[in-house]
């Protein structure tokens, strides 16, 4: 796609975005953020439809993690709109509020509660009361127990139920973290480099897991691994220097000369 073509599609996007906004799960428009003079995001705009699985790729420093931070409330944008389900403004909320709205986030490095058992990790993530006193007097209900058992099967850790999370392998920790996100019953899942450091077979299993999760909810995956993105078989957004460079099917964006230039160097 030539530069003119990109400009053209972008221009013709304008009216579409307005109508699309009515049915998006995530709507990011004109978001910029600057850290000490470094422009991490530069008028970033894209949207995700309900039930969509989306991969986001880009070279180091393209702003992928900053974008995640903005959506989940860790960082506030300088300008721009971030809307959840077309109407909820995420830029005014903190992490806990956004998590309770139904946006789950998986970190790049697997982050689970190491001293707790796999079961307790899932229990803590279980959707429901988050208040201090609710937690103090909480009793495990049958419904919660069944839900945890189901998730244990989904993430292939049913025989590790009583193992402390510290004793899991790297890949198993990644799955546990995905399982914890599922327990929160999010409508939108943000997944940061889920297969970094995984073996080939684990990578394949993870792609399968994410595809099955995406059947019921929207999933945004940030990833470096091209093979994995191909396995995901979904629409791809390419970020570069804080804004969207190209969007489309993987084989389509891979042919884009600008994408090739960014990835292979100048």
């Amino acid at each position, binding site marked *: 796609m030539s530069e003119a073509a990109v400009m053209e599609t972008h221009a013709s996007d304008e009216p579409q975005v307005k109508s699309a906004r009515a049915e998006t799960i995530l709507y990011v428009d004109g978001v910029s953020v600057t850290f000490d003079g470094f422009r991490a995001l530069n008028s970033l705009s894209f949207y995700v439809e309900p039930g969509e699985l989306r991969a986001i790729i880009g070279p180091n420093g393209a702003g992928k993690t900053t974008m995640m931070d903005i959506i*989940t409330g860790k960082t506030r944008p300088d300008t721009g709109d971030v809307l959840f389900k077309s109407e909820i403004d995420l830029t005014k909320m903190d*992490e*806990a509020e956004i*998590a*309770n709205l139904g946006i*789950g*986030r998986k*970190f790049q490095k697997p*982050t*689970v*509660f*190491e*001293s*707790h058992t796999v079961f*307790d990790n899932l*229990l*803590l*993530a279980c959707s429901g009361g*988050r*208040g*201090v006193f609710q*937690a*103090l*007097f*909480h*009793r*495990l209900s*049958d419904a919660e*127990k069944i839900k945890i058992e189901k998730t244990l099967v989904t993430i292939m850790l049913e025989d590790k139920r009583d193992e*402390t999370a*510290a*004793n899991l392998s790297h890949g198993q920790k990644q799955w546990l*973290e995905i399982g*914890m996100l599922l327990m*929160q019953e999010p409508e939108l899942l943000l997944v940061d480099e889920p297969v970094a450091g995984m073996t080939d077979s684990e990578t394949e299993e993870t792609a399968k897991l994410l595809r099955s999760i995406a059947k019921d909810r929207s999933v945004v995956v940030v990833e470096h691994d091209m093979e994995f993105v191909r396995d995901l078989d979904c629409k791809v957004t390419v970020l570069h220097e804080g804004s969207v460079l190209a969007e489309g099917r993987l084989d389509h964006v891979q042919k884009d000369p600008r994408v090739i230039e960014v990835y292979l160097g100048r």
Partner: protein
Amino acid sequence: MTDYRQKYKMTPVVGWLLQDRGGMILLLILIAAAILVPAGNLLVPEGSALHVPTWMLSLLGKYLCYALLALSVDLIWGFCGILSLGHGAFFALGGYSMGMYLMRQIGDRGVYGDPILPDFMVFLNWKELPWYWYGFDMFWFAIVMAMFVPGLLAFVFGFLAFRSRVTGVYLSIITQAMTYALLLAFFRNDMGFGGNNGLTDFKDLLGFSLQSDGTRAGLFVASCVFLGLCYIVARGITQSRLGKVLIAIRDAESRVRFTGYRVEYYKLFVFTVSAVMAGIAGALYVPQVGIINPGEFAPALSIEIVIWVAVGGRGTLYGAVLGAFIVNYAKTFFTGVMPDFWLFFLGGLFIAVTLFLPKGVIGAIPAFGSADRQSLLTSWRKRRADEGGKA
């Protein structure tokens, strides 16, 4: 599953106490001590080998207060990763509340014989009782204040610190600053708490003379009871889902946030509960030692509490109690035999425990090196490795 549910419903408290071997041992020892030690003091005649001298009774009572203080620090440090180096402040505030009651109990038996004003106020030429001394002639009021004032301070301090996400070393430093600021404030005569000399010359508590063996035995029993009760409360908190959230905060705070929990509220809750326990410890301590002065706010003292917990074994609750007894017994011994070496010994002990017994004395006993302790250690090592990698 139904069996599990029934078991869970019928025995929520008894259930986890029975599984908590260290806690059961601690509670049994406390019950035995609460009966045998006063009996040995009051009933066994002097000269008998089983007689417990009064000084030993008071000393053990003092240790029990320290143990309760250590328990309160372990609750936040061992389970939530909040390293408070200012817990002595909450202890001292509880102590001052009790001290104010004891001062007002003196009445006209003071040196100057003023029926209302404590001696130091007469000495400073004060004519009226300051407003904040009102109510302290009532025992119940002093007890409520001994818990309320430390709790309120912890709540306000914690609200500001945790909301601004002050964590780790930075939090430890500002807790030190807090207790140091209070030290300086309480040193001033204008504060109306006896300045440098603090509050002392106490006569009686609820009409019982503080010098009598019976009162001392009563205070000893009260210390045992409150240590036991606070242990059960602390264990209850750590066994609940809230306790699991606290451990999760210790291990991966940001994950807890992104899971939808308000980390600051959880920290605030446990920090306040811990400060109230420290206040109770202070209130029990003052009548047994007979004095409270600003020295209790000294930053070094607050650091010492952390050493007690580290020596006993962090994150176990009963380990903190054991550590408080071990270190304070050593302190009594050393300051008696070779006072100049005590601080060297304390420093050496801390280094030795950190190097050779990272899980404390409790962790060195195989029966208590449980899975939870094991994983606490691995996660701690891992985190340290991560921090090293970042630096």
